[in-house]
């Protein structure tokens, strides 16, 4: 049986606002690409199965599971990782609420939580706690028990809505 070859392809995409051109193994998924090729290690891997959400990144404006998308599928796309989102200041208020409440313990799920929460925060309004919990229920956190994260999202949305 021959070993799997490392077939490669060139991809062009925008990552955190910067154009990137790289030749990548075609089997490499998006988060491995971000971590190994671009050294953007804020996106994490915990199941590589699409269940836990630790790998969540933004692709063309939508929060996606970076482990379920191949790097070559991101050719031509605009990708934002936690590093880019954080530096943009778009969710500085949400991140400050996370910090104030200790809504992150080990922090491994947190980049995915922030990106997933950012989507709800951007939608506006003040959803009830059950709706916030539903929105976050594809992101596994093993440390906090979720309540502080729900609090952080709720408080950010209340403040943004002026409520």
């Amino acid at each position, binding site marked *: *049986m021959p*070993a*799997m070859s*490392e077939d490669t392809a060139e991809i062009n995409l925008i990552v955190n606002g910067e154009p990137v051109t790289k030749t990548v*193994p075609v*089997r*490499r998924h998006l988060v491995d690409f971000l*971590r*190994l090729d671009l*050294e953007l*290690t*804020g996106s*994490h*891997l*915990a*199941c*590589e*199965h699409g*269940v*836990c959400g*630790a790998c969540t990144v933004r692709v063309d404006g939508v929060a996606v599971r970076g482990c379920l998308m191949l790097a070559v599928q991101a050719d031509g796309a605009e990708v934002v*990782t*936690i*590093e880019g989102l*954080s530096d943009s200041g778009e969710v500085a208020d949400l*991140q400050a609420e*996370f*910090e*104030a*409440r*200790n809504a*992150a*313990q*080990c*922090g*491994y*799920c*947190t*980049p995915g939580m*922030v990106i997933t929460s950012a989507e709800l925060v951007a939608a506006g309004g003040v959803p009830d*706690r059950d709706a*916030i*919990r*539903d929105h*976050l*229920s*594809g*992101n*596994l*956190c*093993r*440390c*906090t*028990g*979720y*309540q*502080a*994260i*729900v*609090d952080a999202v709720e408080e950010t949305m209340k403040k943004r809505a002026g409520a």
Partner: protein
Amino acid sequence: MTPPDGNGAGGLVGKGVARPNVKRLIHGRGRYTDDISVPHMLHIAFVRSPYGHARINGIDTSMAAEAPGVVRIVTAAEVAEICEPMVAIAAHRPGHKSAPQHAMAVDHACYQGEPVAAVVAASRAEAEDAADLVIVEYEELPAVMDILEALDPASPPIHPDLGDNRCFEHTTVTGDAPVALSNAAFTVEQDFEFGRHTAVTLEGRAILAHWDTVEERLTVHHSHQSPYQMQDVFSRHLGIPEHRVRVITPDIGGGFGLKINVHGEELAVAAIAKMLGKPVKFTADRLESFAADCQTRDHIATAKMGVDGDGRITSMDFENALSVGAYTAYIRFGLAEGMMAITCAAAPYALTDYHARTRVAYVNKGIVGMFRGVGVPVGCAVTEVLVDQAAAKAEIDPVEFRRKNYHRDEDYPLTSVGGYAAKYMSLHRCLDACVDIMDYDGLRAEQAAQRENNVWRGVGVATFVEAAAFGPVYYGPSGARVSTQDGCTVKLEPSGVVRVMTSVTDQGQGTLTGIAQIVGDQLGIGMDDIDVIAGDSATTPYGGGAWASRGMAMGGEAALQAGKALKGNILDLAASVLQTTADALTLEEGEIRDAATGEARMDLAELAKVGYFRQDTLPGGTQPELMVTRHHVPDTPYYVANGVQGAHVEVDIETGFIKLLGWWVADDCGRVVNPLMVDEQIRGGVIQGIGNTLYEHSQYDETGQLLNATLADYLLPMAGEMPDIKIAHVETPLTNTELGANGIGESGTIGAIAALWCAVNDALRPLGAQVTKQPFTPEHVLEVIAAGK
């Protein structure tokens, strides 16, 4: 939530100060082991046994060696030549048996997923490709999977040199339980199963090891709770002088006890680094984590409680058995799950007669190691379930029944029937606090009303104890090289800020924040003027790291004493400079002040400048000592924390689904250094306990095949199903230390499991049904309801 109370100087202890080291994690700038890459680094993938039990008759690596990117295939036998096997013997427990465990299985694989060979390649992907090409000739052996079957001396021994599969047995006898039980007005009895599960740290175990061939030094970045323990292990097992081994624990994506164990792969990675003279990295993926991470629980039990005519518990019998998997988890020894269960059982109650036995078996499953709670959840749940049954039979409300049966406040210090030595437990105050915040009477009224509508709600109120900060009395005689002390160094920097180096490590608990608060209060400075360094065996004081909820209880006390000693040195030096005496000065808000008038005489930066750069201005012979180290050794076997949890559930008797309606915790962890961190430890612990009780189960078939090894079929608590948790603090400062802080890390998990058992059984009691198996799957709930009818 507890709002943050500012970072100003003075009175930091007791405030919900935010963690200075959490911001980087929220901004995606954490640095976990797998994030670290070094030049010429290679990657390892392990070839693992696909069988639960097999003899290894040969390995053919020729095809794999030719695969793209492969640098070397390393077999278990090659590693065994330079790496001593792990043998976890408890010297203080005669009769305990432990088989040598090699870093990888040399000729005999005893659980599915046990590493057999390692492929070293330029990338992890290429290493995995080649691992598939390693041909191992296995001869499958009969697997021993059932606990009771394994305890039968006639079962085929997994480790023939041990003679049978019995690892350990211990009996505790206090009073005369058989007689007391036979004299009881009534007894209650139940069988229990606590299913095997695993830690599921979100970050898999990870290690990057580098052998410097010139200086012959091993440097390891390791996702581990104790860099000191691993320095010791790598040094002894690989024969490297200890001062040439440095273990650094960077950010860690969850520990929960899993990462205090020593796993074979970790030794193998360090050995391979030494063999190759190159940096090698291994990160466990999710499948490997399920199969080869240490697992936990896997108990069965039968317990019986006797009650007299006045509704007082007199006696208990607790027959416990569990499996430790294929080996005893190094460097501890596979005893704690059972011993903790039978020791903590009945601890809150004033019964007099107790008989308990734990028996520990080897089976062909993953190794049972340390995990949050270690056996205590089992002892607490068994006790609390029987207490509820006894209350029901006595027709006394379960809260009132507990009040009646707890130790009285005037009876401390005492030793419980299981052997728990407690200076004090605030049981009555915690019960009152929990009943108050949960509106117990209101829940009972609602429960009764809802039953009219065929809605089956349950209220569980469970008492828990936690033995924290295990000390030398416990581990010393075992012979295990477990450090039961912790240390702290406090250093005044020239600019007047302070660096703190501690031996306790922080996987997100907030321990390092608490350490800074404690030191800040001693020196009269704010959080912004303190930086805490931890997790480096070469530079920080020697200690235990993170285990047994010791961070604040022990590391905090060491920090307090170090801060206090540095303050003394600072005032001595200031007295020299100011030509006065130290007792005429105070240290407040970063200033050295006149004690009588409060007048500022000099600030810390000025003092540090003299101490480090202008000693010429000091009287001859003055030796400024602006760095101080102190250690703390507990004076009792452990510190006992306690509390009460309340759970409110609804059981759908048609589907067997359990819905969580509300959760309450009244906890006493002594002095609360940081209420925000304490609350979040409790909440996170409770949710893990709920997961253990409702969802989590590592299931094996009869041949040793692990049936659920992905996050799609091993269920975990997610945000949608979990309740908000309301917390009350009962604060009884520990009298063993000046700080008075006790442990909090495991309380949430321990109490939640018992509370959920009680709540679900409370819902089912009118149906004549009781759950007996954890996790409470819908199938099990429906089974017991059907049997009850």
